[in-house]
């Protein structure tokens, strides 16, 4: 990113303060999807927004919300651009964002240390499909904190979450899966 002006930094903060339409406990800044704000000329602002998943339907609501907030701040012309590169990763979620997810009852994604596709170890049954990170860095139940949880489905209420079950307190929960 080129050096941002003070105004751009201020507007970036403002755009980032918009709550996520799907997970309103998180702001877009905490989710890591607002990439940059460019001010070009008087009252003309471009915002770079990146989708979590290519097909994420929330991106349109996010754009509308950002436009509304910046217009309310006095910016006359707001354009929200969708940028794909570099691809969003769950590592872009801030520590504060992770804490809020946990509090909201969603197990936060584990930190990934590589950028390639998720490495997979496959087995014939549900309990064997866990990836190698599972032993050292298990997905913990957001309700009781137990590390004894199992995967029910790779896909849950939205594309970015997997459905798991806690084997200690028996509660099902969503896990923001690593991407």
């Amino acid at each position, binding site marked *: 990113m080129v050096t941002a002006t003070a105004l751009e930094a201020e507007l970036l903060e403002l755009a980032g303060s918009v709550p996520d339409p799907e997970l309103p406990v998180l702001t877009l800044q905490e989710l890591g999807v607002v990439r940059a704000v460019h001010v070009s000329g008087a009252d003309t602002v471009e915002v770079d927004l990146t989708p979590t*998943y*290519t*097909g994420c339907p929330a991106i349109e609501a996010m754009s509308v919300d950002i436009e509304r907030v910046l217009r309310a701040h006095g910016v006359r012309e707001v354009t929200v651009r969708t940028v*794909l590169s570099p*691809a969003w990763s769950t590592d872009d979620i801030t520590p504060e964002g992770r804490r809020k997810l946990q509090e909201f009852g969603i197990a936060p994604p584990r930190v990934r240390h590589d950028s390639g596709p998720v490495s997979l170890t496959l087995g014939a049954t549900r309990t064997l499909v866990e990836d190698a990170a599972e032993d050292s860095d298990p997905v913990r139940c957001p309700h009781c904190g137990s590390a004894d949880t199992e995967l029910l489905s790779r896909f849950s209420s939205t*594309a970015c979450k997997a459905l798991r079950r806690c084997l200690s307190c028996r509660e099902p929960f969503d896990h923001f899966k690593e991407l």
Partner: protein
Amino acid sequence: MTATVPATAALALGDDALVLSHRLGEWAGHAPVLEEEVALANIALDLLGQARVLLSMAGDEDELAYLREERAFRNLQLVEQSNGDFAQTIARQLYFSTYQQLLYTELAGSDGPFAPLAAKAVKEVAYHRDHAELWTLRLGDGTETSRERMQRACEALWRFTGEMFQPVEGLDADWAGMEAQWLRSMTDVLGRATLAVPEGPRTGAWSAGAGRQGLHTEPFGRMLAEMQHLHRSHPGASW
């Protein structure tokens, strides 16, 4: 990023994603268990997102999706095949997601116009492939009935898999290398699932596939009629 987008390639990749997305969407309300209903819909959504980006590179996404005739679509014949039973849908997913992961990995590493989308989508496709492989193992190494159905599905769709590796104009990829990797991957997964690798033809006489040239199979016309019906009946309508 280069300024010119090869339209043939954008349509080929975009149509694959759009058509398979629609097919998977047909499972909504019909999947064997709720988790699969959700999983297939989520995979369909990922594919629809890819389709929107790709078709927008070639023109107006809505016009391309809803107003083209059958012969103007450039998708593989594999993705237009009917859902069949759950095993057939899984076999189609296995064949296609493995291919798509290989192709997107190549495109993500290039500096062509498809690199940004491919780099993004390949991470999603890894989950699609994981899902398909897992079910192939469960069904193949499952009950007598599930094994028989999974084997039948793999055989039925095998003839459509040669087409995947015919070079697409505008895509710089190692097609022969991808095909060899794809075959290795199939041999591995099907072997672990105690299934036989089909022996039927994948290319030449008795194989299928000319979707990239606009020739499609009988189920596609009916799928398209349903997909385009609303838009054609009410042009310009919006929510």
